[in-house]
């Protein structure tokens, strides 16, 4: 925890950054120079999108090799991916898709994570995603599924607070029950950002609006019960003025401090 919280004395009050790993894979020289400039000032946590850790068909070596080179270059305290799949039948979805809450899916993730560990030695944490549907073949409660995955794969949890809120609203599930039953001791890092509402009333995680009050309230409940090393504001669209961004970072920092979570 403390190793992550080292504010730069001469820079904005940002303790660490998460980079979308995919933006730097197969990247030209000038893009990698950007990475070098960021590394000089911040701890960088690579966040991958397309490893497809839940794929029954396993992991693609080509993507893994590129990702492993990037993680090795950055040498972060940990890196993250999603508890999801993005490929099947040799086709790429181009998006994160949910896994069935099943033992077979647990085994697939554990097998794939073990394979990935042969190339990437730094610890991996897995993020909960939003889902439009509960996959057929699900026979476990989600919280049990999470517990089984984290245990079988020996991974930490990147708990996306916004995704948790969105899923509970879209699928009419109780957050209280979820928090009571989920393996919160596995939480290593948090994600938070605002959500939007579609025309049909569904909540959408589009990373493009200010953090909603509901998310702040859930952040508080989560921070009371977990000990994350840090929280990342996932804003990457419709960016407001920087002070507004920093204000949301500061608010999360203060919220964590209230519960003695970070420095």
């Amino acid at each position, binding site marked *: 925890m403390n190793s992550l919280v080292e504010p730069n004395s001469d820079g904005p009050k940002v303790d660490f950054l998460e980079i979308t790993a*995919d933006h730097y*894979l*197969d*990247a*030209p*020289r*000038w*893009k990698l*120079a*950007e990475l*070098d*400039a960021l590394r000089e000032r911040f701890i960088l946590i690579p966040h991958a999108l*397309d490893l497809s850790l*839940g*794929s*029954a*068909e396993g992991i693609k070596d080509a*993507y893994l090799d*590129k990702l492993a080179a990037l993680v090795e270059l950055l040498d972060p305290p940990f890196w993250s991916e999603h508890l999801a*799949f993005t*490929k*099947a*039948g040799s*086709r*790429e*979805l*181009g*998006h994160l*898709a949910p896994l*069935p809450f*099943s033992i*077979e*899916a647990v085994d*697939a993730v554990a097998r794939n994570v073990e394979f990935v560990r042969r190339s990437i030695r730094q610890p991996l944490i897995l993020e909960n995603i939003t889902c*439009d*549907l509960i*996959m*057929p*073949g699900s026979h476990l409660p989600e919280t049990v599924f999470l517990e089984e995955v984290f245990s079988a794969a020996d991974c930490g949890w990147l708990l996306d607070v916004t995704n948790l809120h969105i899923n509970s609203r879209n699928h009419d599930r109780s957050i209280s029950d979820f928090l009571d039953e989920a393996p919160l001791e596995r939480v290593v890092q948090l994600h938070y950002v605002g959500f939007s509402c579609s025309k049909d009333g*569904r909540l959408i995680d589009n990373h493009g609006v200010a953090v909603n009050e509901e998310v702040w309230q859930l952040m508080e409940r989560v921070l009371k019960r977990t000990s994350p090393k840090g929280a990342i504001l996932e804003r990457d669209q419709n960016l407001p003025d920087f002070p507004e961004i920093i204000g949301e970072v500061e608010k999360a920092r203060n919220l964590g401090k209230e519960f003695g979570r970070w420095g």
Partner: protein
Amino acid sequence: MGLTEIQEQFVHLALDSSFRERLFSQNPTEENLFNSLEAEIAITARSLISKRMGIVANQLPLTRKLLGDEFGRKFREYAQIGKEPQGVNRHRLDSIRFARHLVREIRAGKLPRPLGTLLVHETSPLHMWMKRKRFVIRFCRYDPGALQQLVRTTGSVDGVSGCLTFVIWRECRSGQGYRWSTFPVG
């Protein structure tokens, strides 16, 4: 049903509208693992297209501004025809393929000719990224700087005059991406 079958059918349903329509037009069958989830699959399929379109719009901002609502219609049309791009550069590839689709529309007289220059201009850095080019030279029918200005201020290319122009794109030494310079011919 195993995990492999579930994932393969989900991907197939989400990406292929004809397969989706065929499977859901039938009475519920054992073949369809997603029998009761037609609405949810439709949401997923729409989200995938919207996500692709949003990224392509960011990569082709002037084209997006010039076409307005037509951009979305044209993109959905294009997405129905071709296979979804794959790999780390999928979004760049998507923008380049969509630009090619629009060029065919220009040749068919369905879209204004100056859009062709905008497309060449906006896809140049994408090609450079993918092919690791440090610089490229383009020959345009219109001055991209003038076109850019016009589209930004009026959202239109009405009244623009042709002006043969060389455009040199180059990678910046400072690590700030790609820059371009124009050289009018004659």
